């Protein structure tokens, strides 16, 4: 077993060597511009892009013509939300999203609020899922878009996408989903779920960084977007810019592998994830799983070890790459807003660790990680005044803390 162990697959994934192999010739040998229509270099590049488009469309049940290549999911989210807001401004100005969305969605919505849009941020229940009745009630005759993520990047919970799609369709509102964490991990079908726009990215599915896509529905309804960048009118006029051919080739290859291997891979990761969870839960007291276990990605575990601060835990398991919702690990010094939205209290956010398992994790690694986490949590609890107080029977909620 090689150290350090990577278990942070929600942040990014290593590129699958098979993907890398597919990409390699498109850097040096077949380097043409896919928009060059009159020579073999261009044709070869265009052909490769169209193959990738088919592979990516296949992964989400779309038509290849509905795939718009971008630089990544942040751009896809921006294009979807701003593009709809601008295109459908005459129809309405109201957008509905959720408090636990990625910043690429939330901050895009915040910017639109400055330009006259009205945004409803739906709260989530304790399990991390939105309340469908609240969604129904939030829709007005001015609502043009519902943007709800497929799977959450921190707690891995899967929103009720099929139901949201049905509600959106019934009410004639467009439905965008940030499907970055779900694509390649769980079976997606834009037609089954009435999804009109979906953001995906290659580097979360064993492809390269710097390339993503936006699915844009072409019929029933035909979704139109106002382009957010001016230029040569590539990608049906929705996203100008010379295509990143090697990146797109890699994205396509990565999508094809995910589609082919998903049943086996997700079962394997679910088993490893459950093994990790079962060991942590059975060998340590006062551990809390954040978000629904039932509606969840097979590879995600987000867990709070009460009375232990997340960054100090990361420090103790420094040969394991995971992440924490603790304030100390964030640039803003604020604990995770996703965990706060679950209403569990800031103290549990400070104590949270996100494990993201993936294609190259082994059972041996899971055993090592479980062992290591258990011993470091025990050590830090020996050091924790809170754990001591709780063991003495003190109710921490009743203590007068000197906040600073």
């Amino acid at each position, binding site marked *: 077993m090689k150290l350090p162990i990577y278990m942070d697959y929600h942040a990014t994934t290593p590129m699958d060597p098979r993907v890398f192999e597919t990409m390699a010739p498109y850097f040096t040998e077949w380097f043409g511009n896919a928009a060059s229509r009159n020579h073999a270099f261009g044709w070869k590049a265009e052909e490769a892009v169209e193959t990738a488009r088919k592979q990516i469309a296949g992964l989400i049940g779309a038509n290849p013509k509905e795939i718009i290549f971008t630089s990544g999911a942040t751009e896809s989210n921006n294009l979807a939300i701003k593009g709809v807001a601008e295109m459908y401004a005459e129809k309405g100005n109201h957008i509905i999203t959720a408090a636990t969305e990625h910043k690429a969605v939330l901050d895009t919505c915040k910017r639109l609020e400055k330009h006259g849009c009205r945004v409803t941020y739906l709260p989530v229940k304790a399990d991390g899922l939105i309340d469908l009745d609240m969604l129904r009630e939030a829709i007005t005759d001015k609502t043009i878009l519902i943007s709800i993520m497929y799977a959450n990047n921190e707690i891995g919970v899967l929103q009720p996408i099929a139901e949201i799609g049905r509600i959106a369709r019934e009410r004639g509102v467009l439905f965008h989903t940030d499907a970055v964490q779900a694509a390649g991990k769980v079976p997606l079908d834009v037609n089954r779920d009435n999804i009109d726009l979906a953001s995906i990215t290659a580097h979360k599915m064993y492809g390269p960084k710097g390339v993503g896509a936006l699915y844009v529905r072409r019929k029933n309804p035909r979704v139109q977007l106002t382009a957010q960048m001016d230029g040569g009118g590539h990608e049906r006029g929705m996203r100008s810019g010379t295509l990143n051919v090697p990146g797109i080739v890699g994205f396509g290859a990565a999508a094809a592998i995910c589609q082919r291997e998903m049943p086996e891979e997700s079962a394997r990761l679910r088993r490893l994830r459950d093994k990790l969870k079962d060991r942590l839960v059975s060998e340590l007291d006062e551990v809390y799983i954040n978000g629904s276990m039932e509606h969840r990605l097979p590879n995600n575990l987000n867990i709070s070890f009460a*009375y*232990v*601060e997340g*960054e*100090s835990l990361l*420090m*103790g398991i420094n040969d394991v790459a995971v992440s924490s919702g*603790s*304030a*100390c690990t964030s640039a803003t*010094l604020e*604990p995770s807003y996703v965990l706060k939205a679950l209403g569990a*209290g*800031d*103290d549990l956010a*400070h104590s949270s660790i996100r494990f993201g398992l993936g294609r190259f994790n082994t059972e041996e690694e899971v055993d090592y990680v479980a062992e290591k986490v258990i011993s470091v949590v025990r050590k830090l609890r*020996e*050091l*924790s*005044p*809170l*754990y*001591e107080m709780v063991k003495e029977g003190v109710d*921490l909620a009743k203590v007068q*803390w*000197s*906040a*600073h």
Partner: protein
Amino acid sequence: MAYSDKVLDHYNNPRNVGSLDKSDPNVGTGMVGAPECGDVMKLQLKVDPSTGIIEDAKFKTFGCGSAIASSSLATEWIKGRTVDEALQIKNTDIVNELSLPPVKIHCSVLAEDAIKAAIADYKKKQSAAEAQPVAQEA
């Protein structure tokens, strides 16, 4: 973020972890911070009343590695000093010793506060103890 060697050393081998008897009149207890802020420090010291010298110190900390290191260092520094000398320890001394980056300065502030709170508790207990016999005689 990379930790300094001294922070790592205190994190891996924290000095003076534990608790002293809270009810001992010669023991002062300081508890600062709050769970929802992500750090709580408990620092205790035991004073020899005849000399005013801190003969023992213990801590327990819920917080990041820098918070643990700051409180561990604080206990190391106050042991063997008089109460008045301990009050001279500044958070900037801790910052310098541990090479704490700007985002971790609050950990050192908390450690200084913990020392002050423990000494204040000790002094409060001492004045109560002095007042008590008088009250009994009256």
